[in-house]
């Protein structure tokens, strides 16, 4: 058995360690979800205090994470919890059970402990899966739908599922098996029983179902709703409404409402104030898109002609301005308690966005390659404000304090950069790069390429200048380009990590969980 992989073989010893950790956890105020580094840090601290525990390094990590979650899990109703048991508890030769792809279907023959555990869990209302290996666990954890998992398994399997659980911020408690050899395994029943039955009032505000929320938010952008807000019988307003309706992802309004829910726990009912603010955020976003398309000379958006192609540039410019006006009007007329705060956030966002855009536009005309720092700054300025406005609106509506606002601001900065890096990478993952990317659009990949292989960048540039179109495809196949993409991917990982790090001081678990999940949705793994 490898170092740190041990598990004491007696319930009493296990209990003793659990108590130690309980005391430690109480002192250090662990707010879930903890990132891997944090868990490792805490187990290191514990080992310093109790050197004899060094054998159980991994177990400690598991237990610390459990304690971070325990209060939240206690607040989750039994019927929203999933119990994951490993197949290896079953009788290795005589188990009569059949399987489906999710796992073993226990026939309650009583030859192993599963029968007892399952009936107990059934009685409480758990959903139980007896899985072979980790497929079902991984699927569940990454579905983004699971509200809580109590998992029994070997330390090996936890190592694999831990990152998934962290990524989706799934409230979870893991109980290790006594043995690691996949056969006739045993679990500490005292421990398991204790965990299974835990149910308390807690500071958990409820799981936020982003999918249902999304459907709900979409309704606020139906034509009649928009007409009610904007008025009608005016051709310019008609164009604006039409533009607002196109592409209904509604990310930003969704973010705002989700943050609001994380604080208030009141999922489902939203008054006019909230709806107007949601629309105002979308107005700002849609206005910036119209203007962007003009600046970038893009002909299509959402697979349809851009506004300035459908009409003309002056009309499009004007509709963009109209939407900005509506945005501020919606805030002013929202009836929200903190209108002044909201206006400040919105106008600062607006300003920062324009400054970021400005830096890019001015750079474009002088055809000089940007440095890495400049690019990251542009990335951040261009994207972070829109996220920040949405997040801050939700927080302000729910009377969040300054500290939270500061955390949200840091989170948005890192998030915006991660988002743009991903976008940049996605451009390089196409079959060809259409526009001369590093003259029209700042790209981290090409900057990194230029840093290491300036001659390649020069070659690309020369050929493009001569009107050589095949370079757009060829360029993507160069090893040097792939190398730069790899380096960019690493930076993406780093910025995603930074985004999560910014949440470290957050004391509010529901919000911390939500923001962790949002990162994953906004900047998904590719």
């Amino acid at each position, binding site marked *: 058995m490898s170092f740190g992989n041990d598990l004491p073989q007696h319930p009493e010893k296990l209990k003793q360690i659990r108590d130690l950790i309980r005391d430690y956890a109480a002192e250090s105020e662990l707010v879930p979800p903890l990132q891997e580094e944090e868990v490792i840090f805490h187990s290191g601290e514990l080992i310093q205090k109790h050197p004899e525990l060094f054998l159980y390094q991994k177990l400690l990590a598991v237990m610390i994470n459990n304690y971070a979650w325990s209060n939240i899990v206690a607040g989750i109703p039994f019927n929203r919890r999933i119990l994951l048991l490993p197949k290896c508890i079953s009788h290795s030769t005589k188990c009569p059970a059949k399987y489906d*792809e999710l796992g073993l279907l226990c026939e309650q023959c009583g030859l192993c402990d599963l029968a007892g555990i399952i009936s107990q869990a059934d009685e409480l209302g758990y959903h139980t899966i007896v899985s072979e290996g980790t497929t079902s666990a991984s699927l569940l954890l990454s579905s983004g739908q699971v509200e809580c998992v109590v998992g029994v398994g070997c330390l090996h399997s936890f190592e694999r599922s831990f990152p998934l659980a962290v990524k989706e911020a799934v409230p979870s408690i893991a109980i290790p098996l006594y043995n690691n050899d996949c056969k006739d395994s045993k679990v500490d029943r005292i421990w398991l029983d204790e965990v299974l039955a835990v149910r308390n009032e807690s500071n958990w505000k409820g799981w936020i179902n982003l999918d249902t929320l999304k459907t709900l938010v979409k309704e606020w952008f139906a034509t009649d709703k928009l007409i009610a807000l904007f008025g009608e019988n005016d051709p310019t307003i008609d164009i604006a409404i039409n533009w607002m309706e196109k592409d209904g992802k509604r990310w930003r309004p969704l973010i705002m409402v989700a943050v609001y829910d994380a604080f208030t726990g009141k999922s489902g009912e939203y008054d006019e104030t909230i709806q107007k603010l949601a629309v105002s955020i979308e107005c700002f976003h849609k206005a910036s898109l119209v203007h962007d398309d003009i600046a970038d000379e893009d002909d299509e958006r959402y697979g349809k002609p851009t506004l300035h192609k459908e009409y003309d540039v002056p009309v499009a410019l004007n509709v963009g301005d109209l939407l900005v006006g509506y945005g501020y009007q919606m805030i002013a007329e929202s009836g929200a308690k903190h209108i002044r705060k909201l206006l400040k956030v919105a106008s600062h966002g607006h300003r920062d966005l324009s400054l970021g855009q400005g830096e890019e536009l001015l750079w474009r005309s002088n055809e000089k390659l940007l440095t890495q720092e400049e690019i990251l700054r542009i990335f951040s300025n261009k994207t972070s404000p829109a996220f920040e406005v949405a997040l801050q609106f939700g927080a302000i509506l729910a009377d969040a304090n300054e500290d939270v606002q500061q955390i949200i601001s840091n989170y948005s900065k890192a998030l915006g950069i991660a988002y743009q890096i991903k976008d940049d990478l996605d451009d390089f993952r196409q079959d060809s790069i259409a526009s001369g990317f590093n003259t029209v659009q700042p790209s981290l990949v090409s900057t990194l390429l230029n840093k290491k292989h300036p001659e390649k960048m020069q070659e690309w540039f020369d050929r493009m200048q001569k009107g050589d179109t095949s370079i757009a495809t060829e360029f993507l196949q160069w090893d040097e380009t792939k190398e730069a993409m790899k380096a960019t991917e690493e930076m993406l990982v780093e910025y995603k990590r930074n985004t999560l790090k910014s949440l470290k001081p957050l004391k509010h678990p529901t919000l911390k969980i939500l923001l962790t999940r949002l990162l994953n949705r906004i900047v998904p793994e590719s």
Partner: protein
Amino acid sequence: MSKQIFICGCEKDGKIEKESVQKLRSTLEEKNIGYTYIEDMCGTILKNPDDLESLYTAEDAIVFGCQARAMQHLVDNSGKKIEKNVTEYHHVEDENQEEVISQLESNTGEPLKIKYTDSWKPWYPVIDYERCNGCRKCLNFCLFSVYSVEDDGTVVVSASANCKDMCPACARVCPQNAIIFPKHAESPIDGGEGDGTENEKTDILEQIQNEDVYSVLSARRKNFQVSLLKNDQFKMAEEERRACCSGPDKKEEVKEEEKCDCDCNCKEEPESKCDCKDGDSNSSCC
């Protein structure tokens, strides 16, 4: 050249009956037919492959052991077998055993033995490449990196010894039922043909990703309980039937009565144009 005979005893925590192996060995010895006894082929192939030289190079061979499909792929996957080698594989309890043996030449030498002394229980997957479609589900699934992929995309078992004793999970994940664990207790995971009910591929994994997880799980639980109940009822019905027809003779009688008295073939093989179907004979005959 005469056929070379091999018998695998599956000794290392094996799954085949020792008695059947012993019986086969005695039969061969009585008939004075030479054979090579392999204590554990799974183990020897992996740990001391050179010991199996005679099997790999035999031009014409018969191997008795566990499931034919398991042994065949076990040997094929070693990549050591010479091309022109024709090898037949039979289960030690194969019904045709007598027939097979009756065709063997006698006086072909003394029995030989290939030992397996390692303490490691050879438990690892064997891929049936006639079935595998290279989807890599097993590779992604295995926690212990037993599988890997070659440059040409073939999925291979590259770290057999990493495989966890008694864990056949990847075999269940495989949509092609292409993974064999020769020492597993159930068919088709052991290389047998299965009874057709195993590994029923439902779309539950997809449902979990696209629908509400909780409702999918509740429905699964309900379905299962219903099927258990049905099972119970079925068992009860069977017992009742057994109780009311006392003894096997009576059952036979019942069957006899149902058969009609025509002399067409359809009693044994269904025929489409049998006239006893429309006559006043008992139609159940067809």
